Structure formats: structure tokens, C-alpha cells
């Protein structure tokens, strides 16, 4: 009934070693007030000095969002008082941010909602973060470790229409910045934060009264907060009541948004160009350094992996969830290919193992799938496993056991198979011999198989039973395919 307009303001901590305007260490979780200096503490007489790496990372994000990078970009003072602001102005950007007017395509599923949408990016700009204030009874405690940490703010146009779209945007934005290596995307630690704004209106009437929602600490809360707010605004509109343009806080305990007490709306930031920093005109060499630091982004990579390796959409999406996993996958497959295995064959095997077994193994070790690059199960080992399985040296079931063993003992798959004697028995003569023995001990089954009254279904079941017996007789080492074909042949012969 109503049109919904949702925009997001996403802040990310850039993974620079030092803060954006001083040489202090930029890190999360250190002892309070240890990563501070007169500059980030706003002492009398200090001056900011721009960390060029923060600018480079910011422009990488701008590129990834197809933003225009202006000829000249500069900083501005955004003025307001707050105890966590050491200068009571924030060095930010305003008139000419480092990235302007881009877009990003989001594609995927949230719950049952299938989403494919282009979201326009208004701008991205570089700024400094404030310190942290923790309330403790009668006092508030200030920790300035975070003051001055490099922050990139990305502002979208209000192109999203549902909480699901906003949630997907955040998930995919997070994935993208992790791919670029510019941010770890940890919402719990606050290295990725999002504020949402939403308005509703009768169709065709344009944007409505915008409400901003803060304190959305996860992508899920973004969806829930927006859903609540859209519903609240819808109810007001239905009842003919006005919607107040304001900032509200998401309350996760009560599952609702509540108006903020602090009068944020009466802010006049009085922006003016930062006189302590020169204007930056990125030259060709610098832009080249931005471009060479770029990586293949998730969506294009997913599409390429689907077409290059024949994986399904869902599998490809899972493989590309983390860049380190996708890199691992492609390295392992190319190594398997080099050893003679067909690309698609290797791809499917390796993808399956990664998404099931390796994920499980890493989970047990307390590691995240993104840590795979550092894991003992290097791509070369994965490749050799794929080659062995394809060549019939081991069964698919054995392969999974080999994976566990390689992870546990840090040995090559070939060594594990050798030590455990897990090679498949593939000599047809030996298998035939074992099959004959089984046919003799299981004569009753053989007879029933050959009886014409036996149904096909019953016949298959009995054959499988015999295959199982042969496998058992060979200690599980016989290649089941060959067991099958040998048995079939022997049964045919016996029937004559």
C-alpha cells in the first residue's frame, strides 16, 4: 500500500596499522587509553597528519562501488561537542568526498525473499572515529583508544524497499570489504556499523518523513528494526497521524525502536574546509596503486566460478563467501588439473569436501572457514586427494576419512593412505576371487537372485547385500564399482 524508501549509512574501520591522523596503533581491545598521543587526544598545539594508506583503502572501496573518484578531495571540520570527541570537531569530508555517485548490485536470498537489486551509492568519505564512553553509575568512563581510528562512511541512496534488502546489502557489503582486505567486518566489535533511515509514502508521492534508526548491531537487527519501523509508520499513516522526522534507537530487548532522548536533530555542523590538511589530487600513479590493490569482487567471482567449474549457484555462493576459501578452492582445483584431473570433476569433488568435511573439521578446531589459508590441509593436499579418488585409488568414503587424518596428523594424503593401507583393491581377478567365495557362503542369496519369481527390487537389495559381503571380506578395500561389475558377471555366468 505504501512505498518504502530505505537508505543506509555504513561505517567501517579501515585496517590501517596506525590511526588516520596520527601514528598511534589502531587496534581493538587493548588496555584503555594506551594507544593515545597528544594528537588524537586533542591536546593544545597538535596537528593532524593524513595516513595515505587510509586514503588508498577508501578509494579501493570507492572503486568497488563504481564511484567516481574526484580530481581533488579534501577534508572538512564537522563541529559538535561530545565527551568522546577530543577536539569537539570531527575531521571528515563534505564538499568533495573521495568517492561519489556509484552503485552496487545485491543478489541473494534472505529467508524466502529472493533479491536482485541495484542500490545507488551517494558517496563514501574518510573520517576519524571518536573514543568510547562507558556508563558506570554516577560517572561515564572515557577510553580514547578508538579516537582517531580510520573510518570510512558509505552512504546509499534510499533505494532499498524492505528490511531483507537492507540485511542483504550489509551482508554483501561486509563480504566485499573483507574481500578487499580493508575491513574485517566484525559487527560485534564495531568495525562495521550501520545506521538505517526509512520513510514511507503513498505511491508516486516521493520520499516521506525520514526516520533514522541507530544502534543496529547486526545485519539481522537491521532487518528487524526496519520491519518494526515500517510497520509503525504504516500504522501512523493508516490512522492519519503525522510521522515525526527524528532519530530513534533500536532496543533489542524490547524488539522496538524508541525515540532518542538527546536532541540530535538541532545540529548545525558548520562544515568548513580543514585548514590543517592540504588538498589531495590523486595522480595517475596513485590511482594505479589503488587499481593494483583491487581484487576480483564476490559477485563477478561467483558468476565466473559457476561457468568455469560447473558448480551450482548455491555452492558457488558458499565457496565465495570468504575470499580465502575461494582462493583455496581455485588453487586446489588448478593443482588437481595440473595432475591430469578434469577441471569440473576436480571442482565438484573439492567443493563438496570443502563445504561439508573441511567446514566440520575447522569447526572442531575452533577455526573459522576464513582461516583456511593457514590450515594444515593445504590446497596441494586437497588436489592430491581429488586425483587419487578420481583414479580409483581410494573410495569416496575413504577420502573423507583421509581428510580427517590429514588434518589430525599433518601428513600428505598419499602417506596416510599408504600407512593405513586404505588403497582400494582394484585388481578384478582378486575381487572376482573374493566374490566367488562370498557366493559360495551366501548360496541362498544367490539362488534367490536367480529365481525368476524374485522382484527387481528384491534382486537389487540382495545384490547390494552381496556387494557388502565382498567389501567386508576385503576389509572394505575393494573398489565397490569393480565389486559390483564382477558380481554381476559372476551371477550371470552362474545363471547359465
Amino acid at each position, binding site marked *: 500500500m505504501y512505498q518504502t524508501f530505505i537508505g543506509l549509512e555504513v561505517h567501517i574501520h579501515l585496517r590501517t596499522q596506525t590511526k588516520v591522523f596520527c601514528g598511534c*596503533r589502531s587496534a581493538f581491545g587493548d588496555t584503555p587509553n594506551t594507544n593515545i598521543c*597528544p594528537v588524537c587526544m586533542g591536546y593544545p598545539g597538535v596537528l593532524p597528519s593524513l595516513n595515505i594508506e587510509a586514503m588508498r583503502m577508501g578509494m579501493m572501496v570507492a572503486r568497488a562501488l563504481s564511484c567516481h573518484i574526484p580530481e581533488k578531495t579534501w577534508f572538512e571540520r564537522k563541529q559538535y561537542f561530545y565527551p568522546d570527541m577530543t577536539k569537539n570537531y570531527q575531521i571528515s569530508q563534505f564538499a568533495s568526498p573521495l568517492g561519489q555517485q556509484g552503485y552496487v548490485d545485491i543478489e541473494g536470498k534472505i529467508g524466502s525473499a529472493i533479491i536482485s537489486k541495484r542500490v545507488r551509492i551517494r558517496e563514501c568519505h574518510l573520517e576519524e572515529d571518536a573514543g568510547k564512553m562507558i556508563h558506570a553509575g554516577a*560517572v561515564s568512563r572515557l577510553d580514547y583508544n578508538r579516537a582517531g581510528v580510520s573510518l570510512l562512511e558509505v552512504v546509499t541512496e534510499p533505494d532499498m524497499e524492505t528490511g531483507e534488502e537492507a540485511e542483504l546489502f550489509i551482508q554483501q557489503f561486509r563480504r566485499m570489504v573483507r574481500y578487499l582486505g580493508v575491513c574485517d567486518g566484525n559487527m560485534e566489535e564495531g568495525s562495521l556499523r550501520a545506521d538505517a533511515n526509512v520513510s514511507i509514502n503513498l505511491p508516486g508521492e516521493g520520499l516521506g518523513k525520514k526516520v533514522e534508526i541507530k544502534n543496529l548491531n547486526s545485519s539481522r537487527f537491521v532487518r528487524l528494526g526496519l520491519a518494526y519501523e515500517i510497520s509503525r509508520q504504516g500504522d501512523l499513516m493508516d490512522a492519519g497521524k503525522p510521522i515525526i522526522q527524528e532519530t530513534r534507537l533500536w532496543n533489542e530487548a524490547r524488539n522496538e525502536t524508541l525515540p532518542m532522548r538527546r536532541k540530535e536533530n538541532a545540529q548545525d555542523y558548520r562544515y568548513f574546509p580543514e585548514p590543517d590538511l592540504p*588538498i589531495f*589530487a590523486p595522480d595517475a600513479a596513485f590511482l594505479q596503486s589503488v587499481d593494483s590493490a583491487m581484487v576480483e569482487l564476490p559477485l563477478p567471482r561467483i558468476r565466473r566460478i559457476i561457468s568455469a567449474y560447473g558448480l551450482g549457484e548455491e555452492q558457488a555462493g558458499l565457496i565465495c563467501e570468504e575470499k580465502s576459501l575461494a582462493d583455496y578452492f581455485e588453487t586446489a582445483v588448478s593443482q588437481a588439473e595440473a595432475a591430469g584431473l578434469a577441471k569440473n570433476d576436480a571442482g565438484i569433488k573439492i567443493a563438496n569436501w570443502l563445504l561439508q568435511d573441511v567446514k566440520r573439521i575447522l569447526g572442531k578446531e575452533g577455526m573459522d572457514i576464513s582461516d583456511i589459508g593457514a590450515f594444515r590441509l593445504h590446497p596441494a593436499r586437497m588436489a592430491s586427494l581429488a586425483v587419487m579418488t578420481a583414479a580409483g585409488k581410494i573410495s569416496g568414503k575413504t577420502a573423507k576419512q583421509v581428510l580427517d587424518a590429514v588434518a589430525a596428523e599433518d601428513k600428505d594424503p598419499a602417506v596416510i593412505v599408504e600407512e593405513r593401507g586404505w588403497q582400494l583393491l582394484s585388481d578384478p581377478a582378486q575381487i572376482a576371487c573374493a566374490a566367488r567365495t562370498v557366493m559360495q557362503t551366501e548360496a541362498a542369496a544367490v539362488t534367490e537372485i536367480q529365481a525368476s519369481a524374485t522382484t527387481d527390487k528384491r534382486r537389487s537389495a540382495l545384490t547390494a547385500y552381496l556387494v557388502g559381503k565382498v567389501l567386508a571380506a576385503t576389509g572394505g578395500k575393494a573398489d565397490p564399482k569393480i565389486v559390483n561389475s564382477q558380481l554381476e558377471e559372476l551371477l550371470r555366468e552362474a545363471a547359465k
Partner: protein
Amino acid sequence: MEIRDLQETAALAHLLMSEQELREAFPAFEEMLSFFAVMQAADAQSGDADGGMAASSRVVNAGYFRPDAAPPAREDLSEDMLTKAGERDERFITIPNVL
């Protein structure tokens, strides 16, 4: 220009000023603003020809800025700075609670 403008301005600047103080400061404030008004005669061009860029700032390239590395042999002034704060609680600086 009214006293109310001055009052709003004082609030933005976090300058606590009583009615009395505002009334006393108002003449000097008004005097300066009427002095500033002479700039109207100088207005050679209208609009922001330079797109909001500061006329006095230099334009530089990347090599001018700071590389991302912790400076060697940096002195840790954190304890000294914590001592200079009006109130502290071990490693935190404290103020009366916001709420």
C-alpha cells in the same frame, strides 16, 4: 540581529551566558557584524566558483602524506596524559554520567 541569535550561537559554542552577559556582549557583537557588512561591496563574483575548496590550501599528491607505519622509538605519553585529566579511574578518564 537579535539577542536570540546571540543566545543560539552561544549554545552552539557551549558558552554559558546569562541574560545579563548576553545583553552586555550584544553591542560588541553587533558592532563587529556591521563592520563585516562592508564586505558586501567587495563581492566580485557570486556563487562558489571553486566548489567549496579552500583558497588558501595547497594541492599535493600522495607522496606528501604519512605512510602507514608506527613511528620508530615513539615515546609513550599515555600515563602523563592520564595524570593531566581532571578526574580518572585507573586507565579511564571520568566525567559525570551523561544520562
